[in-house]
C-alpha cells in the first residue's frame, strides 16, 4: 500500500538569496569589458534555397561595425551532437527559415542591429518540405527506420475481438526558457578562448567552438555559471551561438557578446519534435490490449540534432505503464525544412505516452468501460505481465498501487458520477476527468553518456568547493550535490559551495539532461568526498591518540614531531562525521571540529582534494535489435485531472489536479516538488495553449509571448494537490533517490485526456475523437460544435 511522504522543509536553492535580490549573474549581466563587441546573426528568410550571393558592403559601412563573417570564415563547418550534418553558418544552401547565414560584429548593439538588416542575401528558392506527410511522400528522412517488437502483432490484431486505427497528431513546443540563447567569448593569450555560455552541455560547446575555429580542445574553455532555464533547449542548440561569439573574439582579439532576442531565438532554434503516429490496436471485451502496431513519425526539421535519440525514447515509452503482449513500434525521423528540432524535457517520452494514453481513452469509450478500469487492466503487473517490449523487467513496480492510491485520494468514482450528471444537465459547459500514469526510464539510452566526474576541494577552514559537469538551470542540481557532499562530511550545507561548471575542471562531461544530473554528478562527487573522508578519518584516529600539544598545528611549523602518516595506516572503522564534528563512536567526548581536522590534515601533507568518477552500471541497449536494459530504474507517478470547458467559447479551466510521484528517497523533497509542479504546468502548456503557428514558408509566426502562450499564474490548477510517496527500494541509486526532472511533465497528459473525456460525453460510442495535441480553446470550441451539431 502506498504511504505518502510528509511535506518536508528542505534547504532552498543555493542561489535563492541572490535570485530574489537580482544579484545572480547571468550572461548578459556581466559587465562589458573594454572594447567588447556585440554579435548578431543574419538568418535565412527562405526555407530552402541556394545562396546566390551575400552582399555585406552596406552592413560594413555602418559606423561601429567591425566585421561580417560568413561560411567561408568557418574552419570546420559541420556540427551535430549525434550526426554531424549541420553547418554553423549556411554555405551554399539554406535549409530553414532562421538558419544563420552571416554573423555581424559591432561596437554597439544599435549598430549591430542596423547592420544585421543591411546584409543582403540573394536566394534561388528550392522546393521546401514543410510537413511530416510531405516528407514521407518524398522519402525525406534522417537516418533509417528502427523498430522494437515483441510477439506476433499481425496474428494478435487479426484475431482480436475489437480493432481500432487512427492517427495521433502532436505539435511541437517552444522551450520558452526566459533567458534566450547567449554567450560571451574572451580571447586569451596564445590563441586560447574562454567562452561563457548559457548551455546545458559545456563540453559540446567546447567541441563545437574548437572544431569551428580549428583549435585543439585544450585551447577552449567553456564556463557555465547558470542558465535562465534550459528544458533541453540548451542541450545542443546553445553551441552555435557560443561559436559565433568565439569566432568574433578570435578574429578581432576583442571580447564578443552574442545575446539573442526572444523573437529571433524562437525563429532560429528548434522545438520539441512534432509527431504523427499511425496506430492499429486490438483489444478484448474487457479492454485488455492484445496487440498494438504503431508507426511513429517525427519532424526532425532540417538537421539531425538529437532527433534520432528522441525517436528512440518515444519508441521505448510507447508502452508507458502498460503491458503490451504483442507489439510492434516503428520509428522514423523525417527531414523537413524547418528549424532542427531538439531535446525538450521528456525527450521522446511524452509523445509515445500521449499515443498509448489516448488509445486507452478510445478503447474505454468504445466499450463503455470507465477509462480508469481499462488502464488498471493493462498496467504492468507481476509475475507474467511485467517485462517491457524491449525486454527490461519493470522492477520496484509501484504502478498498480499508485492507480489504487490516486483513485482513493481523489475520490474518483464519486466525482465520475457527479460529472456524468453535470454533463447531462449543462447546456453551456462540460466537465472531464482523467487519470494517467508515467513510467519514465532513467539513463541516457546512449550508454557512453552515462558517466560523470567531479572535483572536490576541501580547504583548510573546512569549507568545500565542488565542481562537476552538471549545469544549473534552476532545477537545483547544485543544491542536491552540495547536500550529498555536506552529508558525507557531516558538515553544514553553508560550508559547501558548488562552483561554476567549467571544462577546465571537469572533462568530457555529459549534458545535464535525461533527468540524470544528480544521479551522475552527485554520485561522482560523493565518491571524491568519501575518498577525502577516508584520509582525514585516518588523521583523526591518530590525533585522538596524541595529546593536543603534539598535534601538527602546534608542532608542524618547527618540525619537532614526526609527521602524521596515513598511507600505511589502517582505516579506522568507527570515526563519525556529524554536526561539523569528528569523533570515535566509542568515545564521542573526544572530538575535533571538521574545520580543525582539515587544518591538521593539511599540515600533515594529507591530500584534501580528490576526483570522483561514476558510470552507471549494468545498462545496455542494442539499438539495432531494439532489445536490452537501457534504464537504471524507472521513475513512476500518477495524476488525476479535472477540467471544465465552455462549450460556447472553448475556454478551458483545469479545476483540480491530484498527483502522486515516486521519487525514491529524495535528497531535497522541497526542490523535487518544485520540479513536479513546474514540469506538470509546462506540460499542460504543451497540451493546451502553446500553439506554434507557421506560415507557408515555415516561418514561425508565433515567435513571442504575445502570440505564443505558455501557462500563466491563472492557469495553475485551482486545486493542485501534489505528494511524493514513500519508497526506499531504489537502493542502487545515490542515496536511494530517483530522478525527477522530466517524468512529471508526462502526467500533464491527464489534462489532455480529460478534455477528451469531456468531449466524449457528446460523442456516441462508435465515434472516435482524433484530437490533436495541443487542444487549444479554438479546437475545443470547434470539436464541441461539430459534436453538438452531429447530435442534434
Amino acid at each position, binding site marked *: 500500500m502506498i504511504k505518502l511522504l510528509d511535506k518536508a522543509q528542505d534547504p532552498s536553492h543555493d542561489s535563492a538569496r541572490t535570485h530574489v535580490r537580482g544579484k545572480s549573474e*547571468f550572461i548578459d549581466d556581466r559587465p562589458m569589458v573594454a572594447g567588447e563587441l556585440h554579435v548578431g546573426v543574419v538568418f535565412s528568410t527562405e526555407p530552402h534555397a541556394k545562396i546566390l550571393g551575400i552582399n555585406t558592403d552596406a552592413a560594413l559601412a555602418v559606423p561601429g561595425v567591425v566585421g561580417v563573417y560568413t561560411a567561408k570564415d568557418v574552419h570546420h563547418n559541420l556540427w551535430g551532437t549525434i550526426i554531424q550534418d549541420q553547418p554553423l553558418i549556411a554555405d551554399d544552401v539554406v535549409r530553414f527559415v532562421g538558419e544563420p547565414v552571416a554573423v555581424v560584429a559591432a561596437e554597439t548593439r544599435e549598430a549591430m542591429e542596423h547592420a544585421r538588416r543591411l546584409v543582403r542575401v540573394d536566394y534561388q528558392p528550392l522546393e521546401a518540405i514543410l510537413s511530416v506527410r510531405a516528407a514521407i511522400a518524398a522519402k525525406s528522412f534522417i537516418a533509417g527506420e528502427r523498430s522494437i517488437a515483441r510477439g506476433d502483432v499481425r496474428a494478435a490484431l487479426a484475431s482480436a475481438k475489437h480493432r481500432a486505427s487512427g492517427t495521433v497528431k502532436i505539435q511541437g513546443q517552444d522551450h520558452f526558457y526566459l533567458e534566450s540563447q547567449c554567450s560571451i567569448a574572451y580571447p586569451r593569450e596564445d590563441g586560447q578562448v574562454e567562452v561563457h555560455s548559457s548551455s546545458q552541455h559545456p563540453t559540446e560547446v567546447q567541441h563545437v567552438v574548437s572544431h569551428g575555429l580549428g583549435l585543439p580542445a585544450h585551447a577552449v574553455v567553456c564556463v557555465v555559471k547558470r542558465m535562465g532555464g534550459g528544458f533541453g533547449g540548451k542541450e545542443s542548440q546553445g553551441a552555435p551561438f557560443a561559436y559565433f561569439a568565439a569566432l568574433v573574439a578570435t578574429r578581432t582579439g576583442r571580447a564578443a557578446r552574442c545575446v539573442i532576442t526572444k523573437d529571433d531565438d524562437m525563429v532560429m532554434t528548434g522545438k520539441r519534435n512534432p509527431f504523427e503516429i499511425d496506430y492499429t490496436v486490438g483489444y478484448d471485451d474487457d479492454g485488455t490490449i492484445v496487440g498494438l502496431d504503431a508507426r511513429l513519425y517525427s519532424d526532425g526539421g532540417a538537421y539531425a540534432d538529437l532527433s534520432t535519440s528522441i525517436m528512440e525514447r518515444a519508441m521505448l515509452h510507447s508502452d508507458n505503464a502498460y503491458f503490451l503482449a504483442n507489439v510492434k513500434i516503428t520509428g522514423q525521423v523525417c527531414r523537413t525544412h524547418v528549424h532542427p528540432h531538439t531535446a525538450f524535457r521528456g525527450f521522446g517520452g511524452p509523445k509515445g505516452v500521449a499515443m498509448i494514453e489516448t488509445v486507452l481513452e478510445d478503447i474505454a469509450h468504445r466499450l463503455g468501460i470507465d477509462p480508469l478500469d481499462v488502464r488498471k487492466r493493462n498496467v504492468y503487473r507481476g509475475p507474467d505481465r511485467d517485462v517491457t517490449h524491449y525486454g527490461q523487467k519493470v522492477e520496484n513496480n509501484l504502478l498498480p498501487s499508485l492507480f489504487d492510491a490516486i483513485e482513493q485520494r481523489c475520490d474518483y468514482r464519486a466525482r465520475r458520477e457527479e460529472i456524468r450528471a453535470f454533463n447531462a444537465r449543462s447546456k453551456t459547459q462540460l466537465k472531464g476527468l482523467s487519470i494517467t500514469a508515467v513510467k519514465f526510464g532513467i539513463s541516457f539510452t546512449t550508454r557512453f553518456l552515462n558517466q560523470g566526474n567531479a572535483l572536490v576541494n576541501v580547504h583548510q577552514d573546512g569549507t568545500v568547493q565542488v565542481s562537476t559537469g552538471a549545469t544549473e538551470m534552476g532545477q537545483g542540481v547544485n543544491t542536491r550535490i552540495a547536500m550529498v557532499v555536506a552529508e558525507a562530511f557531516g558538515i553544514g550545507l553553508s560550508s559547501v559551495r558548488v562552483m561554476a561548471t567549467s571544462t577546465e575542471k571537469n572533462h568530457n562531461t555529459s549534458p545535464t539532461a535525461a533527468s540524470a544530473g544528480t544521479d551522475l554528478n552527485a554520485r561522482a562527487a560523493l565518491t571524491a568526498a568519501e575518498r577525502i573522508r577516508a584520509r582525514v578519518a585516518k588523521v583523526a584516529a591518530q590525533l585522538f591518540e596524541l595529546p593536543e600539544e603534539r598535534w601538527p598545528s602546534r608542532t608542524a611549523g618547527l618540525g619537532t614531531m614526526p609527521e602524521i602518516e596515513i598511507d600505511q595506516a589502517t582505516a579506522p572503522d568507527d570515526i563519525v562525521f556529524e554536526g561539523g564534528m569528528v569523533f570515535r563512536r566509542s568515545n564521542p567526548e573526544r572530538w575535533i571540529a571538521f574545520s580543525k581536522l582539515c587544518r591538521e590534515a593539511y599540515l600533515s601533507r594529507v591530500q584534501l582534494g580528490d576526483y570522483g568518477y561514476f558510470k552507471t552500471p549494468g545498462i545496455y541497449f542494442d539499438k539495432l535489435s531494439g532489445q536490452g536494459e537501457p534504464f537504471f530504474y524507472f521513475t513512476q507517478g500518477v495524476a488525476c485531472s479535472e477540467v471544465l470547458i465552455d462549450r460556447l467559447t472553448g475556454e478551458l479551466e483545469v479545476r483540480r489536479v491530484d498527483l502522486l510521484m515516486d521519487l525514491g528517497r529524495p535528497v531535497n523533497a522541497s526542490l523535487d516538488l*518544485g520540479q513536479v509542479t513546474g514540469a506538470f504546468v509546462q506540460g499542460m502548456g504543451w497540451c493546451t495553449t502553446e500553439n506554434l503557428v507557421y506560415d507557408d514558408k515555415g516561418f514561425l509566426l508565433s515567435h513571442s509571448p504575445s502570440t505564443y502562450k505558455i501557462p*500563466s499564474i491563472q492557469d495553475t490548477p485551482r486545486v493542485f494537490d501534489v505528494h511524493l510517496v514513500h519508497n526506499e527500494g531504489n537502493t542502487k541509486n545515490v542515496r536511494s533517490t530517483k530522478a525527477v526532472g522530466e517524468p512529471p511533465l508526462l502526467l500533464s497528459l491527464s489534462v489532455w485526456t480529460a478534455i477528451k473525456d469531456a468531449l466524449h460525453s457528446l460523442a456516441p460510442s462508435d465515434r472516435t475523437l482524433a484530437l490533436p495535441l495541443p487542444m487549444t480553446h479554438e479546437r475545443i470550441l470547434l470539436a464541441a460544435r461539430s459534436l453538438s451539431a452531429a447530435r442534434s
Partner: protein
Amino acid sequence: MRDAIVLYVNGARREVRGAAAFLTLSDWLRYEQRLTGTKVVCAEGDCGACTVLLGRRSGDRPWRFDPINACILTMAQLDGAHVLTIESVESNGALHEVQRAMCDNHGSQCGFCTPGFVMAMLGHFEHNPKERATPKQVANHLTGNLCRCTGYLPILDAAVDVRPEALESVVARHHSTQIESALDAIARDSLHIEDPERGAVHAPATVSELFALRAKHPDARIIAGNTDLGVMVNKQKLWPAGTARRAISLHLLHELDGVKVEEAQVTIGARATLGEVERAVKDAAPDFSRLLRVFASPQIKNAGTLVGNVANGSPIGDTIPSLYALGAEVELSSARGARWVPIDQFYLGYRKTQLAEDEVVTRVRFAPLGDKALFRAFKICQRRDLDISYVGAAFYLAHDGEVIREARVAYGGVGPTVLRLRDVERMLAGVALRDEAAWERVAEAIERAVTPRSDLRGSEEGRRVLSGNLLRKLGYELRGEVFA
C-alpha cells in the same frame, strides 16, 4: 524648456540627456546604470521579467507606486518619476519579507523571472500592507509575470506566506516629500530633446503647446503609456535602427488626467490609465470594468491608456467593441477647437481614423448604464489571461424587463475594423429576453454577418462560430441556464 529628463532611481536623482533619452528604461537601467537585476525577456510587455515600481503623480491624487514593464517605457516618460528597482528592495544585505518568503517557499528556480515577480508582489503589498494575501488576489496581481520553471504554485505559496507584521515599505525607505517637490517643480517646464541620429522627443507642459507641436509635426507619434509603440520600436517594426523618430509624450499634461464619473456622463482623459478606468467605472459600467480586469496585466494597465487604445485603431483593440456598445464618443482636439465624434464614425478602415493631421484624441465619454439596460462584454483568447483576443464582442440591450427595446452590438477581430452589426441590432429590437428560438435566429444571423479571416490567433471558422456563440452564451446567462 528643459533638455534633460529628471528622475529618481532608488532614491537618487538622475538627469538624462541626448541619445540616452531614447533608450528603454530597462536598457538604461541595465547598461547605463549597471542595475542588472531588471531582466529583459520578451521586450514587449508580455512576461513581466522587467517589472519595476514606477512612482509618479497622476492629477490631484497623491503619489502612487505601481508595477510597470520597464522594457517598453522610453526614458522620456520617466521624466518626473521615481523608479524603484529590485536593487532597492533589500536593506543592507537583509532580505525584505517578500524576498524571504520567496526563498523559504522555493519561489525561484532558474531565477530569471524572479526579480520581476518580487517587484510585482511588492507592488501588491505596498498598497495592501495590513493583511495576508489570498491566492486569488496574488494571482490577479501576478497575471503579468511569466515563470517557466515553478508551475507558479511555490510563488503563490510565497505570497500567501508574506507576514504583514514583518513588512517594511520599500517606498517609504527611498521616497520622500522632498523628492516629490523637486519633481513637481521640474514638471512645470516642458521638455525637448533632439538627437541627430535618434530623433526627437517633446513633452509639452500645456495643452496649447501640445496642439502647436501636433500641427508642426503631423508625423510624430503621440505617446502616453507607450505600451504599443514601445513594442513596435523594440521589434524595429516602426522605427528600425538607423532611422530617426519623433514622439510627443503627454506625461506632463495633468489636464488630461483622470476619469470623471458624473450622473449623465463618464469622461476619461487621455492620460487615464486602463487601471484607473477599471477602478473608476466599477459602478457606472461594471461589465466594462470587469472586461478591463482581464484586459491586460497589471503592469500594462498601469501604463497603457484607454484613449491610447482608441487612438491606435487596431481592429482587435479589446476595449473598442465595448465603447461601441456603450455609445461612446471621442473628443478630437486641436488649436482650432474640439469636436465630439461617435466612436463608430471615428474609424474609417484598417488602422485609419477621422483624426485630422493637427488633431489629438483628448477624451472619451459615455453615459452610465441605467436600470433598464444591460451591458455585457466578452474577450475570448487562446489563453484565459493576458492574451490578445481573437474575438471580442459587446452587447448593449435596453429593455423593459421582458422585451428588448434597443440594442447595440459590436464585434472585434472579425473584420478590418470593429464591426457594429446594425442589422442584428434591428433583429434584436422587440425580441423577448427569454425567447430562445429568436435568440438562436439572431446568433445565426451574426455568424452570417461577420467577415473574419484566419490568422495566427484563430481561424476564420473558429471566429465565425464564436461570434454566434457569444450571443448564445449571453442568452443562456439571461435565462439562468449557466451553472458550474
